[in-house]
C-alpha cells in the first residue's frame, strides 16, 4: 500500500486499486428551536424535557416550518457556492422505529432546498475541488437507549425534530486525507456562517461514508457500500482503510461486492453488514400533505447573501495578500474562524512594532501547543490576544529576549496576566545597556583567556561558548543581539 499524502492506492499482485469516496454529512443546524416545533434544542438536557406535542406526534398535531432553520440552510448553501432552489418540497420518509414518533421523518427527497455546489480542499500538493450534490433539510429522530433497563428499551425524544442539514458530496474523494480535509472544511465554513457548531462529540456533525474501489485509471464506478453514522474524522479514516481493503480482497478473490449498508465497529476496527440491498427499507417517500412547498423569493436570498461573512477561502486570499503569510500559514490561520479573529486582533494591537512572522509563530506554535495540551478552543484561550500582542511587542522593542518571553508566556497563563507586569515584578527585563554588557564581556574574556586566544587563532565555533557564558552570567537577561555585536568586536 502506498501511503503518501496525495495518493492512496491499494496494491494486490499486479493490480493497483484506487478508492472512491463520497460523504453524506448530517449537520445539526444551530437554532434555539426545532425544525417544525418551538421546543428547545439545548444539548444534554434531562431526557424527554424538550419535547412538544408535535415532536411526540400526538394525534392532530401539525408541523410548522421554522423560518430561522430555512435561513440557516440557505446561508450554508451560499457558503458552499451552491444553487439555492427557490422552491423545495418536504417529503415523508416512512419507517417504523421506537424513536421515530410520527412513523415517518420529514425530509426533502425530490426537491431539496440547495442544489449543486463546490468545496475547495487545501491539500499539501495544491487545492482539490469536491463537488456538492445537494443539501436538504430534515428532522432528526429521538434516541433509543438499550442499556438502562434490563427488559425495556427507553426512548428519549429530546432530539426528535431537531433540524439537520444533510450535505451530500459527489464521489470526488480518493484518500482518507481528503475526507478529513473535506469534513474539516465543511465544518469550518459552517462555523464561519454560524449555521452548525460542528461539534462531533455532541453529534452535531456525523457522516455516512460511501466507499467503492476500482482499478486505477478506470472511469467506471464500483459497487459501493455505505458506512452509516460515523462520528469522528479518525473513525472515518479507519473505516475507509478497512472497507476499501475488504472490497479489494473480495475482488481479488473473484467475488462480488454487495451493495449494502454497513456499520463501523470502533472497538474491533472493522465494518459489518447492517442490511443488504434486498432488505433495504422501502421508505415510500411522498410529499408531506401537512406542509406546503417551501417557496423563497430572490429578495429573501439576496438579503441572506448580504449577511454572509468573509469565508475561509476569501480570508485566506486576503491574509496572503495583506499579511504576506505563506499559503500554508494562511490555511492554518483561517481554518477556524476564532483563530483568524485572534490572529487579526494580535496584529491590530501590535502597532508600530508589527511583525507578522513573529505573531504567526507565537500563535501557531506556542499558543496552539498550550491549547492542544489543555484541550481548549482558541476562544477559551488562557492568554488573550491583547496580552499576547503585548508580549510580542516586548520582544520586538528589545525589552525581553525570545527565551525569556517563553518563561513569561508560561506565567501569563495563570489568569491572563499582563506580560509587562510580569517583567517588572520578576525583574526579567533584558540587559541592553552596552556599557554594562561590555563590562560583563570583558570579565568573561578575562576569565577565559586561553579560549579567547584559540578563537582568535581560528577556532570559530568557540564563539558560541562565549555567548553561552554571557547568557549564563546575566541570568539569561542579556540582549543576545548586543552580546553578539560586542563579542565580535572584543574578540
Amino acid at each position, binding site marked *: 500500500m502506498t501511503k503518501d499524502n496525495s495518493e492512496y492506492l491499494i496494491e494486490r499482485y499486479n493490480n493497483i486499486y484506487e478508492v472512491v469516496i463520497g460523504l453524506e454529512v448530517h449537520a445539526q443546524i444551530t437554532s434555539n428551536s426545532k425544525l417544525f416545533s418551538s421546543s428547545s434544542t439545548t444539548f444534554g438536557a434531562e431526557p424527554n424535557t424538550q419535547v412538544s406535542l408535535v415532536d411526540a406526534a400526538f394525534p392532530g*398535531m*401539525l408541523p*410548522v416550518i421554522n423560518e430561522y432553520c430555512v435561513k440557516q440552510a440557505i446561508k450554508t448553501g451560499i457558503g458552499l457556492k451552491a444553487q439555492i432552489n427557490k422552491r423545495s418540497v418536504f417529503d415523508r420518509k416512512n419507517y417504523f422505529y*421506537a424513536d421515530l414518533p410520527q*412513523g415517518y421523518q420529514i425530509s426533502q427527497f425530490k426537491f431539496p432546498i440547495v442544489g449543486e455546489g463546490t468545496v475547495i480542499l487545501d491539500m499539501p500538493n495544491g487545492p482539490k475541488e469536491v463537488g456538492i450534490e445537494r443539501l436538504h433539510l430534515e428532522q432528526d429522530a429521538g434516541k433509543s437507549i438499550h442499556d438502562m433497563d434490563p427488559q425495556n428499551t427507553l*426512548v428519549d425524544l429530546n432530539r426528535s425534530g431537531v433540524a439537520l442539514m444533510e450535505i451530500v458530496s459527489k464521489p470526488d474523494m480518493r484518500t482518507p486525507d481528503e475526507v478529513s480535509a473535506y469534513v474539516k472544511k465543511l465544518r469550518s465554513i459552517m462555523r464561519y456562517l454560524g449555521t452548525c457548531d460542528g461539534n462531533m462529540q455532541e453529534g452535531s456533525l456525523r457522516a455516512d461514508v460511501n466507499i467503492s474501489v476500482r482499478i486505477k485509471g478506470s472511469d467506471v464506478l464500483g459497487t459501493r457500500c455505505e458506512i452509516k453514522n460515523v462520528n469522528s474524522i479518525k473513525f472515518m479514516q479507519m473505516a475507509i482503510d478497512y472497507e476499501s481493503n475488504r472490497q479489494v480482497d473480495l475482488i481479488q478473490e473473484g467475488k462480488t461486492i454487495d451493495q449494502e449498508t454497513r456499520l463501523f465497529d470502533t472497538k474491533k476496527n472493522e465494518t459489518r453488514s447492517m442490511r443488504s440491498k434486498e432488505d433495504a427499507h422501502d421508505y*415510500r417517500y*411522498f410529499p408531506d400533505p401537512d*406542509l406546503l412547498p417551501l417557496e423563497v423569493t430572490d429578495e429573501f436570498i439576496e438579503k441572506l447573501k448580504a449577511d454572509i461573512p468573509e469565508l475561509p477561502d476569501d480570508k485566506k486570499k486576503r491574509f496572503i495578500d495583506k499579511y504576506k503569510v505563506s499559503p500554508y500559514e494562511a490555511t492554518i490561520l483561517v481554518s477556524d474562524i476564532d483563530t483568524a479573529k485572534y490572529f487579526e486582533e494580535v496584529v491590530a494591537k501590535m502597532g508600530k512594532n508589527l511583525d507578522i512572522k513573529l505573531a504567526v509563530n507565537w500563535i501557531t506554535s506556542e499558543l496552539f501547543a498550550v491549547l492542544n495540551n489543555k484541550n481548549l478552543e482558541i476562544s477559551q484561550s488562557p492568554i488573550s490576544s491583547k496580552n499576547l500582542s503585548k508580549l510580542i511587542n516586548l520582544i520586538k522593542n528589545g525589552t525581553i529576549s525570545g527565551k525569556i518571553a517563553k518563561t513569561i508566556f508560561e506565567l501569563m497563563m495563570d489568569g491572563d496576566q499582563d506580560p509587562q507586569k510580569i517583567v517588572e515584578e520578576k525583574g526579567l527585563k533584558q540587559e541592553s545597556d552596552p556599557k554594562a554588557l561590555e563590562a560583563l564581556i570583558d570579565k568573561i574574556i578575562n576569565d577565559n583567556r586561553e579560549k579567547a586566544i584559540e578563537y582568535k587563532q581560528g577556532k570559530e565555533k568557540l564563539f558560541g561558548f562565549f555567548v553561552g557564558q554571557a547568557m549564563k552570567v546575566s541570568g539569561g537577561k542579556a540582549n543576545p543581539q548586543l552580546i553578539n555585536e560586542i563579542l565580535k568586536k572584543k574578540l
Partner: protein
Amino acid sequence: MSDIISLTLVDLVKNIKDKKISSEETTKAFIDRGEKSRNLNTYITEDFSNALLKAKAFDQKPNFNLKLPGIPMAVKDLFCTNGVKTTAGSKILNNFIPPYESTVTQNIWNEGAILLGKLNCDEFAMGSSNETSFFGNVQSPIDKDLVPGGSSGGSASALAANITPITIGTDTGGSIRQPASFTGTVGLKPTYGSCSRYGIVAFASSLDQAGPMSKNVKDCALLQEIISTYDDKDSTSIDFKRNAYSKELTNNIKGKKIGIPNEYRVDGMPKEIEDLWSKGIEYAKDCGAKIVEISLPHTNYALPTYYIVAPAEASSNLARYDGVKYGFRSKGENLIDMYEKTRSEGFGEEVQRRIMIGTYVLSSGYYDAYYLKAQKVRKLIKNDFDEAYKKVDAIITPSTPSAAFKIGEKTNDPVSMYLNDIFTVPVNLAGLPAISIPAGVDAKGYPLGLQIIGKAFDEQNILNIAYAMEEKIEFKNKITDWWIK
C-alpha cells in the same frame, strides 16, 4: 319549555339571550334527551356532569354578547378535547385523553358553547355508514336498523334526534354531506384551508376539513362563521377574508348561474334521485337562478383517485399509532412483534384495508403508476371545476346516489360502500366548499339531499343558494322517536 330540544340553534340563542330559558335548563333538556336515546349509540363519551357545571357557571355570570351563549353541544369524536377522552372511533385510542384542544372546538367554546360529549363516528373517519366504529354502529333516528351515513354518523344521528342542537363533523370524501343527506339535516364542507386542522385526528391531510352540521341553513351559517379562522398552527390554513356568514345570509339569488354537470347522471342511479335532482333544478329556477348545462369530464376518475390519495396519506398519518407513546399497546416479544400485535388488534378491518392500500400505492415500483398518476388526475378534476366556474357561480348535484341503507347491507362489499361517495369526493379532491340540504324523500320516506358546490372561499354564495332553496323546499324531517318507545 318542553320543546327546547326541537328549537333551532338561532332560536335557542335568542331564547337564552332574552332570558326565557337558562343555559342550565337547555343543557338539562339535551342531557335528558341523550340519556333517553342511548339506543341510538350516538355518544362514545358523555360529559354530562361537566356540562351541567359549566351551564350553571354560565347562568351565574352570563355573557350574552357571545354568539353561542351557554349553548350545549356534542361534537364528533375526531376533535381533540382537552381533558376529555378522544378516540376517533378506534380501539387504538380507547384510553387517549388529549392535553390540548383543537382550534375548531376552541373557537366554539370561546363563543360560550358547552361540550355535552363526544359523538360516535367511523374509525378514523373511514366509512360511509358508521359501522366501522370500535364503539359499535349508530342507529339512524329515521328508521330502525338504518345507517345514519358516515363517517360523521353519530353527529348526524344526534342532530336529527335532537340530542344536540347543532354539531360539527369532518369531511374527507363526503363524511359531513352524506350523513346529512341520510338524516334530513344540513351539512357544510368548507373550502380546504377554511377551518384549522390543528387538533383534529388526521385521516387524509390534503382532504380533511371540519364543518358544521345543523337543522337548517341559518344555523349552519352561524356555526361556520365561528369555526372558520386562520390558524398559524396549521400550515395549510388559508388567510382569506371570511364573511360574517349568518349576518350576510340572504335568500336573494336572482340571476345566479347554477351549473348542472352532465357527468353526474351515473349509470344505475335510482329514478327517485333523478327526480329529486330535477325538482332541485326547478326550485333553483323558482328562486330566480339561471340553469346552465356544464361538463366536468373527469368526474368518472374521481372515486378511484380518491381511493388512492386518501389511503396513501392515511397509511402514513396512522403510522404514529404504534403502541409506543400513547393509546392501546399489546405485549410483544420484541419491538416488531409489539407493533404487529398492537396494530392488528388496535385497528379495525376497514382501517387495516386502507392502510394496506395506501402502503401499496406508495411503495417503490407502484408509486408512479398509482400515487403520482392519481395526483395528476386530481389536478385535472380541479381544472374541470375551474373551467366550469368561468361559466357558473355554483353547481347543483344530488348529495348521494341513493338514500340510506340498512345496517349490514353493504359491510361485505367495500366497493359498493365506496360508491356512496361518488358525488362528494370530487369536491374534496378540488378543495371546494359544498353544502348538502335535505330536499325530499325516497319511496320509503328516507331523506334525500341535494349538494350545492361553490367556488373556493365562496361559502357565502352556496349558503345563500341553500337558504333560498330551503324556503321553497319546506322539508320536514319525520322523527318518530321509535327508539324511545
